[in-house]
């Protein structure tokens, strides 16, 4: 009798691993059968997880931490034994603004585009109609990446520009209707806005933080403990799905699977582009290849680094305007569970990092890192402004931010 797990997800390309683990039979082969439940808002995905309608969920990483800390609702401890991917989001602006931020036909430079945006933000602020951005959730990596970029470019979020929540499937509409001037969202929703002529892509979030944590697999802590025998095979299956996902031979088939009505219910052409790191930045332009737009599998991308959880906590403190609290930071760090990841993959041949935490943003060139199993080379993981996040000095890091 195989174990059964129900997994909630939103229709986004980065829900790919659970979907492919199911469709390619990796989950069944590992001994766990999956039931996938699609929703359209993160609030619903989270509720289903908390009410026990689902065992695990595809989730924006900061939301797992916010839920554990009880931000906006009673605290419910969640655990993240697997990261579902890095980056894969973009910033898309109304065409007239996008053209002022970057040369035609290429992604912008994060610093230069930010400087140009600052001029526009000032104009709009002076006119009494501040620029308005849409992000997918207040506790999303999109929100934190966008804010990180704006603040580093001298644009104060909530003061110089407004940031509101728009659900991913409605982002293109909100841009077209003028409800927002820009969006920070995952694929395929930037491309949908581009196809409609409502916006043009300016930056990939990978340009803000080259290896930024994005979606995670979240479970209630209690459920993780109770269902460990099902979670370990699930992690192995997700890892196999990751290996399958990055192989160009499988792109066509995988895009077709993800496009099905029960999953993303969208264009397999747009999904294939996101998988292949190829994007149409403007409706009448050419496809642009931006390597590692969405990062999967390589460099143990799915390993839940404790330092990533801690970075997210610093951003939560920063933008919720709450005091830094050592005990809270400890609880936030504890959400990411590298121990579970390791216990699932030991003996599999997949590289297992030797450390559970790393200094984020410090790698400038290819670096061989110590592992417990397998060999691993890490590439640059820089923040665009050159800042380095040392998880041993959270408070000092917070003080150094603009």
């Amino acid at each position, binding site marked *: 009798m195989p174990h059964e797990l129900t997994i909630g997800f939103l229709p986004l390309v980065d829900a790919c691993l659970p979907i492919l683990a199911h469709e390619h039979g990796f989950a069944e082969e590992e001994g766990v059968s999956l039931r996938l439940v699609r929703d359209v*808002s993160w*609030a*619903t995905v989270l509720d*289903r997880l908390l*009410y026990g309608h689902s065992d695990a969920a595809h989730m924006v990483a900061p939301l797992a931490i916010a839920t554990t800390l009880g931000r*906006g609702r009673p605290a419910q401890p969640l655990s993240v034994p697997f990261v579902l991917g890095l980056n894969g989001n973009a910033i898309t602006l109304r065409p007239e603004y996008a053209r002022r931020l970057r040369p035609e036909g290429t992604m912008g430079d994060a610093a230069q585009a930010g400087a140009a945006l600052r001029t526009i933000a000032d104009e709009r602020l002076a006119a009494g109609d501040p620029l308005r951005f849409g992000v997918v959730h*207040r506790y999303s990596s999109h929100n934190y990446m966008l804010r990180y970029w704006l603040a580093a470019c001298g644009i104060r979020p909530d003061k110089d520009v407004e940031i509101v*929540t728009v*659900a991913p499937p409605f982002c293109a509409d909100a841009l077209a209707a003028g409800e927002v001037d820009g969006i920070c969202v995952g694929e395929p929703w930037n491309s949908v806005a581009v196809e409609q002529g409502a916006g043009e892509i300016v930056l990939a979030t990978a340009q803000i933080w080259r290896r930024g944590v994005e979606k995670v697999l979240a479970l209630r802590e209690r459920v993780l403990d109770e269902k460990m025998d099902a979670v370990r095979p699930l992690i192995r299956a997700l890892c196999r799905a990751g290996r399958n996902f990055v192989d160009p031979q499988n792109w066509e088939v995988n895009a077709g699977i993800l496009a099905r009505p029960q999953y993303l219910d969208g264009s397999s052409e747009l999904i294939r582009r996101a998988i292949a790191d190829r994007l149409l930045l403007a409706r009448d332009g050419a496809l642009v290849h931006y390597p590692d737009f969405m990062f999967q599998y390589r460099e143990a991308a799915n390993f839940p680094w404790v330092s990533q959880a801690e970075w997210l906590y610093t951003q939560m403190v920063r933008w919720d305007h709450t005091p830094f609290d050592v005990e809270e930071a400890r609880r936030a760090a504890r959400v990411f569970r590298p121990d579970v990841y390791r216990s699932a993959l030991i003996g599999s041949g997949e590289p297992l990092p030797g450390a559970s935490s790393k200094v984020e943003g410090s790698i400038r060139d290819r670096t061989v890192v110590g592992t417990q199993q397998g060999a691993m080379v890490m590439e640059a993981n820089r923040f665009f402004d050159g800042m380095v996040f040392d998880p041993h000095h959270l408070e000092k890091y917070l003080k150094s931010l603009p």
Partner: protein
Amino acid sequence: MRIAIVDESAARASIIQEGLATLPECELFVLTERRGLVARIGEIAPDIVLMDLGNPSRDVLEEYFAVSRVLDRPIAMFVDESDNESIAASVEAGVSSYVVDGLAANRIKPILDLAVMRFNAFARLQRDLADAKGKLAERETIDKAKRILMDSRGLPEPKAYAEMRSAAMNQGKRIADIAEAIITAHRLMGGH
């Protein structure tokens, strides 16, 4: 008490509304449009917002509830798959965090229960309707297959039906499936 019902299905919203109309001292507002929703809720300033757990506007509303100064502490209630256990779980898990000061849980419970009952009644209605539609389509399929058997093998009507029934029983299938197979086979053999 001011209750806002947010539901993109106007039919379901009106069924919930009808159920709640029996409550004393309640003013009901039905919102079915996604556009301008936040502004409308701001105008209404409800004590309770009733909405489907799967409503697409939830992230937007939660953001609004979290930062809003106008609407200090509204209540959101979620109506879906609701047995008592899941209501209890939802209250534990955070719905209670939206409770307005001084509005006790025992005042909310009956409203929620009633809304859930109406919600489920609507879901049942939809299911019955779908079932009925499915049955009608099956009926037509079976009749068509029956005619094929009658025409091609010269069987009388009761005999044709009996043959399909015994085939279904022997193969552990439904008659509708057998009928479907007959129609497909007939088409492949060049029939119409």
